[in-house]
């Protein structure tokens, strides 16, 4: 037997060959998973596990510095229920969302309708409308901080020309959040324009033409044909817009930091501050968990409407 093993592989005992074949089969089966592994390891460690971890943390009172933490069941949630700041933030967030959603939908729809016509430089316009979406948030914040500057900003200058009172915008508890709404709409309505555009382009041209041949004017053909056929897209934009409204916080970090007097404190900002200024990780995780369930429900609705395969292949 020893002699046979020293000779060429062809002479390997049947047992070893069998094992090699099994290994090869095993590898064939495992191969796809090995290809998926790098991406999925990253996803697991930095997306899925953190999600579970966050929910777990919400049941503890960990503050990042202490050695250990106690499992305090729902105490964080009870504390949250009585947290005036938090509910103020919820109120601000809802107010903010109500402010931006109609504006984004209307502006995006009008722009998309205009872009859907035979107009010169269409793709240039489309690029310009989408441009604010890709501008880094820090740049957007600085630009608008200057525009909204009470004494030196161009906005108040223009308002002054017309003789109207000039609010302190980001320094005024009444106008701070509306100012951020303007910022948000400027930044994002191009995003929804592109989505509406895709929706419009999926409406068969014959329908409109047939209507026009039958004597319908633009207004009628829009309301009776285009708009109804566009309703899934409109609904999608509505949901995404609402989700976006609830997620706002980076501009708050960069401009008002929740002020003045808590006027721009929004849910995610309160979360951010609780976690990274007060390091009250358990408590902040409770906020995060609540927010997750809220947003995830909306996102589920959104994905149901889109039909995930259509968009993501």
């Amino acid at each position, binding site marked *: 037997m020893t002699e046979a093993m020293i000779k060429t592989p062809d002479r390997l005992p049947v047992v070893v060959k069998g094992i090699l074949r099994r290994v090869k089969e095993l590898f064939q089966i495992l191969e*796809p*998973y090995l*290809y998926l592994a*790098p*991406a*999925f390891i990253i*996803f697991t*460690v*930095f*997306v899925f*596990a*953190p*999600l579970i*971890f966050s929910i777990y943390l919400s049941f503890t009172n960990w503050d*990042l510095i202490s050695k250990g933490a106690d499992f305090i069941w729902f105490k964080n949630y009870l504390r949250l229920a009585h947290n005036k700041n938090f509910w103020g933030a919820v109120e601000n967030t809802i107010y903010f969302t109500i402010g931006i959603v109609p504006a984004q939908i209307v502006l995006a729809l009008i*722009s998309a309708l*205009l872009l*859907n016509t035979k*107009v010169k430089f269409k793709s240039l*316009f489309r*690029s310009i*409308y*989408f*441009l604010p*979406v*890709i*501008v*880094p*948030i*820090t*740049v957007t914040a600085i*630009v608008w*901080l*200057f525009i909204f500057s009470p*004494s*030196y900003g161009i906005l108040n*200058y223009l308002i002054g020309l017309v003789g109207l009172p000039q609010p302190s915008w980001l320094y005024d508890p009444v106008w701070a959040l509306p100012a951020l709404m303007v910022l*948000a709409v*400027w930044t994002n309505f191009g*995003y929804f324009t*592109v*989505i509406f555009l895709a929706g*419009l*382009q999926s409406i*068969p*041209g*014959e329908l*409109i033409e047939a209507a026009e041949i039958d004597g319908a004017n633009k207004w009628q053909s829009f309301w009776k044909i285009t708009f109804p056929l566009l309703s899934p897209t409109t609904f999608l934009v509505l949901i995404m817009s609402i989700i976006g409204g609830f997620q706002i916080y*980076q501009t708050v970090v*960069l401009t008002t930091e929740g002020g003045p007097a808590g006027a721009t404190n929004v849910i*995610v900002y309160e979360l951010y501050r609780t*976690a*990274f200024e007060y390091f009250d*990780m358990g408590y*902040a*995780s409770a906020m*995060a968990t609540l927010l*997750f369930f809220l947003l995830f429900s909306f996102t589920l609705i959104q994905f149901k409407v889109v039909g995930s395969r259509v968009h*993501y*292949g």
Partner: protein
Amino acid sequence: MGLTKKTSISFKVKPGWVSFILLALGSLIIVMPLLWMLSTSLKSMTGVYKFPPGLIPRPIMWQNYIDAWNSANFPRYFLNSTIVAVVVTLGELTTSSLAAFAFARMKFRGSNLLFLMVLGTLMIPKEILLIPNYVILKQLDWLNSYLALTVPFMAGAFGIFILRQHFLTIHQDLEDAAIMDGCSRLRFLLSIVIPNSKPALAAVAVFSFITNWNSYIWPLIVTRDDSLRTIQVGLSAFKDAETSGANTNWALLMAASVTTLVPVIIIYAFAQEWFTEGYITSGIRG
């Protein structure tokens, strides 16, 4: 049957002109803040506060850009952002190519479930993940390091979707021929599929680079040293340092902002299609 062209109002010339004017007006309004930023960046201090304010700076202070560049550790910030963006992009290209290849060209148990999981990563709001990821990095002792800035982002759903769609179009005959020639799956991927997927890879690369370039909150919370700051964090720190009521040097701030924006604009100018698709698929908004 009949006409199958897309919806467009095309009867008379007039409607086209109305649309054009309205779109142009809208574009102007959208671009105005950025134009104002550019204009302010080239003004002198007195020009900024001049009353009434004008659009064209007189004199044109190119010096502002040099001053802004030297006012803070911007060279370092730029370098950091570039390193991070490049590393993450390469990482994402790698993990996405491998995963997309598996999804596109291999049959295996659980492929639908795993694909749904990839989709799932897009459905989880990023704000929720800030705290737990921060904690995880703290335990790994990765805080305040390039690892923290790069590793969490080296895989992304968009890349997997786009590359999978593209890989699906590669003819099975090509793969069969390669295998008959003794080529392993991996070699097939590396030597044949990848070189034939340049546009798709470019799309993923562009999208990954810019989203990482623009990233603000994450680099903000995981880095403490000035030497690790990315451009966005550096810019916001600069803003905090410079903003002081009446003494704010807005021209300098605008110059720094323009400098931060320029790489994004340049890449956007060349690759809008990919940008837009990436942003929309991933649901990222400003």
